[in-house]
């Protein structure tokens, strides 16, 4: 794909003026990093970072039966989400395979915003549209209606508070409220993908540059810096958060990914994948598939997605994500491994790094949890 075919966010010129290294991410030309990705990572852990996440795919679902539609189309109990709150959930195929992981915001009694990964936004839109047949609800493609900026890190509440009258203290984790930030209307959500406190701000694309500049100015004294997708990946990896395409795929059910808790069998009515997921839940309990674990390197060589996990000369698993961890100071990875080797502290586990078996310690996820 040539660069002229990549989609550009409303902040494209801003990123280029900042000297960002850009990368093709799911068909979007996105900032990978502005300077050192390690410094950007540390800024989010200790101060604050500013992200452009406008590639994420927003889909609005409205109408009297919006809740019923989402309860049918997704695996979570979306009808119980209160207006102003959000929920992490998944959309699966009839065979239980994960199509995407999602955050669903209930904006009003009969209005939801579904936020899909950029790489899956079209798939999710198509599936929701198809599954909406027979429901009194409308599925609307709002990908071009929003720019998405995120302020993440311990200083982010103070920075945002200086630009809005919204009640941030009353805004809980996984909640969202409409408000005004730096003079522009925004949906203010206390969500993120970094393992830190922080906010995601959905605004009209024409307001993105002004809001970016306002946040940059408001955050300067607190040490806020612009942050790219490279540090977003190491931040979410340290926080043990799955990434679609790495830890999640259509070949896995939520139970295979250790995320069976998002599947709500007790909700009313049928939902897509119920029968297959019921079987997957029983299989996971009686004959567990591979288990998603954390690995911490004893050496300095970095495991990468697809590398084999080995023990006693046998392949016992596969790395799904790996990176040098700025917080731990050592390489870390998430990997699916056979249950016999999944317990934290299991001896003799290694990763085949280009032919050399490097020793790794099996640990519980996440690698990093912030102090609250």
């Amino acid at each position, binding site marked *: 794909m040539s660069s002229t075919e990549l989609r550009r966010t409303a902040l494209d010129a801003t990123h280029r003026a900042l000297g960002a*290294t850009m990368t093709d991410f799911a068909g979007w030309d996105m900032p990978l990093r502005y300077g*050192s*990705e390690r410094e950007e990572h540390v800024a989010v852990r200790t101060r604050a970072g500013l992200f452009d996440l406008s590639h994420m795919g927003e889909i609005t679902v409205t109408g009297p039966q919006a809740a019923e539609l989402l309860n049918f189309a997704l695996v979570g109990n979306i009808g119980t989400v209160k207006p102003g709150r959000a929920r992490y959930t998944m959309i699966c195929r009839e065979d239980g395979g994960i199509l995407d992981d999602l955050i669903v915001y209930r904006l009003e009694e009969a209005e939801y915003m579904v936020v899909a990964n950029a790489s899956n936004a079209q798939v999710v839109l198509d599936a929701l549209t198809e599954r909406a047949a027979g429901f009194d609800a409308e599925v609307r493609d709002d990908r071009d209606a929003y720019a998405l900026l995120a302020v993440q890190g311990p200083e982010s509440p103070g920075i945002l508070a200086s630009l809005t009258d919204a009640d941030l203290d009353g805004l809980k984790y996984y909640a969202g409220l409409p408000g005004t930030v730096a003079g522009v209307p925004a949906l203010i959500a206390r969500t993120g993908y970094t393992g830190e406190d922080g906010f995601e701000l959905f605004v009209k694309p024409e307001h993105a540059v002004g809001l970016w500049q306002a946040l940059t100015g408001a955050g300067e004294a607190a040490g806020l810096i612009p942050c790219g997708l*490279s540090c977003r990946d*190491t931040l979410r990896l340290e926080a043990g958060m799955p990434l679609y395409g790495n830890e999640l795929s259509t070949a896995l059910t939520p139970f295979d990914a250790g995320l069976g808790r998002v599947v709500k069998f007790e909700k009313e009515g049928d939902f897509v994948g119920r029968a297959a997921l019921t079987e997957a839940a029983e299989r996971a309990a009686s004959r567990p598939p591979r288990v998603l674990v954390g690995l911490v390197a004893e050496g300095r060589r*970095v495991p990468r997605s697809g590398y084999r996990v080995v023990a006693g000369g046998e392949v016992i698993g596969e790395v799904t994500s790996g990176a*040098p961890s700025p917080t731990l100071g050592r390489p870390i990875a998430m990997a699916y491994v056979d249950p016999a080797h999944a317990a934290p502290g299991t001896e003799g586990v290694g990763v085949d790094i280009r032919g050399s078996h490097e020793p790794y310690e099996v640990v519980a996820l996440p690698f990093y949890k912030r102090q609250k």
Partner: protein
Amino acid sequence: MSNPQQLRYSKEHEWLSGAEDGVSTVGITEHAANALGDVVFVQLPEVGDSVTAGETCGELESTKSVSDLYSPVSGEITEVNEDVVNDPSLVNSAPFEGGWLFKVRITDEPADLLSADEYTAFAGA
């Protein structure tokens, strides 16, 4: 960024110093270091190893990727930079100075090494 005039360059983005007593110093260029991002692991050849121009002799690992290290010339390794093994960020912070990688006693060098100006044009940087 500017590529020092007194060095010569390979198309694999290594630099090579002028020889002193037949020994030249090798590193990677600032252009290459910026493209890699933060370097977190450096594997270098060992003193006494023979290296061949254009062939891999180690690896450089950054946050996002791992890249082979190529020798720009053929010869014998006489010294490696232990500082950069212990602190790979030197490759990013001082690619032409403290971030040098190894010294090699040259037995043969390819004819297509580039001047600073030629490399700048080649790398577009």
